[in-house]
């Protein structure tokens, strides 16, 4: 498990990170969510030793992250870079060796990875000769070649073509399923929503929320029910204690008026409404509305 403990960092007078703490657990995809400039990249750079922290620490399995430990990490920076004039296979092999692989093992893994990413036929082309999408695949190969213990990807989906997105998704899920923690940042909520198990939300250099995605949804999302009845649902507007967010003929979305939710004051408000609806006629659906990540995000920051 990767633990970030109270990491702070300033650039000049500007405090970019303020006592940032969170965990990245094995076998789980952790989405690192925040607006541009919230401190995602700085945090990742500190984890990877590219930047120093002013205060705080980063530990891996309880041990400080040293150069040797870091060599077992895989990193894909946001502004991806490889050597333009180097051949694709040579390049990925070289990165493998840089991470401590033998020449033979690096060569074998490179070949397998490139085939997996449908780049096998371009192995001996210079990187600059590849299309942008293929360059991104080569980049993924470079961050995976040494079979990293931990994967850190900065905005892995930004600017990817749809096929490459699928490739990255497949690869990341596989890594997580194999037990490696995966930390990836994104400002695209929809992607994070379908992909991550855990969430870390950062804003203005402070962690606003972190934990399991579903738990966070419960904690930060406003509880809502969608009620579909046989006839007009307009009567809901007159029920005390609730707020009707939308009503469209027989369909309505309601939320509690007080911040304490549907169980405010020990009363089961949701159940009372359901009973009332059934008394008035047919009830076709009464479903809790799962809050979107977008909502959690707005709520949390």
């Amino acid at each position, binding site marked *: 498990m990767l633990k970030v403990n109270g990491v702070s960092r300033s650039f000049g007078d500007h405090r970019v990170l303020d006592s940032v703490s969170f965990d990245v657990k094995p076998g789980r995809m952790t989405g690192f969510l925040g607006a541009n400039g919230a401190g995602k990249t700085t945090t990742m750079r*500190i984890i990877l*030793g590219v930047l120093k922290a002013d*205060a705080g620490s980063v530990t891996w399995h309880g041990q400080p992250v040293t150069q040797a430990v870091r*060599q*077992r990490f895989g990193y894909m920076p946001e502004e991806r870079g490889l050597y333009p004039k180097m051949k694709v296979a040579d390049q990925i092999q070289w990165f493998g060796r840089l991470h401590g692989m033998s020449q033979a093992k690096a060569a074998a893994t490179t070949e397998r990875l490139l085939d997996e990413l449908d780049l096998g036929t371009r192995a001996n082309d210079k990187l600059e000769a590849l299309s942008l999408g293929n360059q991104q695949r080569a980049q993924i190969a470079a961050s995976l070649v040494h079979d990293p213990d931990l994967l850190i990807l900065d905005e892995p989906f930004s600017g990817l073509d749809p096929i490459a997105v699928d490739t990255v998704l497949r690869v990341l899920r596989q890594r997580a399923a194999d037990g490696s923690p995966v930390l990836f940042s994104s400002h695209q909520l929809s992607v994070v929503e379908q992909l991550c198990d855990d969430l870390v939300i950062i804003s203005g250099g402070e962690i606003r929320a972190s934990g399991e995605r579903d738990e966070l949804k419960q904690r930060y999302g406003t509880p809502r029910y969608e009620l579909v009845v046989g006839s007009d649902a307009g009567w809901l507007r007159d029920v005390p204690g609730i707020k009707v967010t939308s009503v469209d003929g027989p369909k309505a979305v309601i939320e509690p008026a007080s911040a304490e939710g549907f169980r405010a004051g020990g009363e089961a408000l949701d159940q009372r409404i359901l009973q009332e609806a059934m008394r008035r006629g047919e009830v076709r659906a009464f479903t809790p509305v799962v809050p979107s990540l977008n909502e959690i995000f707005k709520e949390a920051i």
Partner: protein
Amino acid sequence: MTSVEERTSVESRNDSGGVTFMQATWLVAEREIKAFVQMKGFWIGLAAIVIGLFAASILPNVLGGGDTKVAVTSTEVAQTLEAGSFDVERTDDVAAAEELVRTEEVEAAVVPDTTGQSATGVEVVALENPPSDLMASLGSPPPVNLLEPGDVSEGEKQLVIMAFALVFMLFAMGGTAIAQSAVTEKQTRVVEILVSTLPVKSLLAGKIVGHTLLTVGQVIVLAIAAPIALQAGGNEALLEVILPALGWYVPFLVFAFVLLASMWAVAGSLVSRQEDLGSTMGLVMALVFGPYMLVIMLSDNATAMTVLSYVPFSAAIAMPVRLFTGEAQLWEPFVSLGLIAVMIVVITAVATRLYTGSLLQTGGKVKLSRAWSSASD
């Protein structure tokens, strides 16, 4: 305050396949070398220098290979020589003939014997060695009067100094490849992956080692080619004199390259785009062109050359030149190399800090002061 980096200094656990500093340095060096030898330009450049060397040595013989010019005072001898393949210049007296030899308008003069030992009654006057074809055509070898019995002519000396300076400049400028490599890594952001994987120092060290090895390789090729070229051009006398200087020139060139190598790397790391490289390479380029021009301009000034042969930046040309002209004592190149070595240590230490401090700063040109103070980040 605890920082990640301080914690890093805690003894690292040596788990599966960690890469040591030396291994990391070598991997970087290996990549630099491979990238270079895969470029056509590299081989074309090296071939051009070797071809130039042979051309400079052989062409004068081929082009100027007509009749040997001889000044002659006696009509009788003149007729004999004109029958052979000599370009004869008639002069009225010995003084005029000697003057022509001194000004190198003729290669030798045939004048009446003054030694009394000549079987044919003539003697040959030449600057530092008599043309062999002339000696052969005069029957039993006449006595020879050498006006400047040095081993090497002034013209040859100038040519060698030019060659030393030119080759120095070519190799020293070769360091621009280090600057380009550094800026490429910044421009493509590959540097982020590198820094997260390797110690920054091994990245710099690898670049210096890689490019130094490339330079050593090329210098050795030239050091082997030069004597062959001189031999092919029939310049044996020059070869004999130049060999010790040439032997010294090799380590001096390599030291000079290493001296500038880390500075080239800093020049590259200060900017984020190839196009901006020109704005940071000025100082290093001045350290290449300055010594080149100073040595060429001051090559006749013994005091200046002595000073230049101890200044680390110009020693690589000035000391071999002084060894070549016979002005330097045997111990002098050792001292001079030692001074360069000390300077290398100082400059590399400063450059390492600047390189570390500027490597991750993107955007415009990084100021040196900022690079220096950011190094602790």
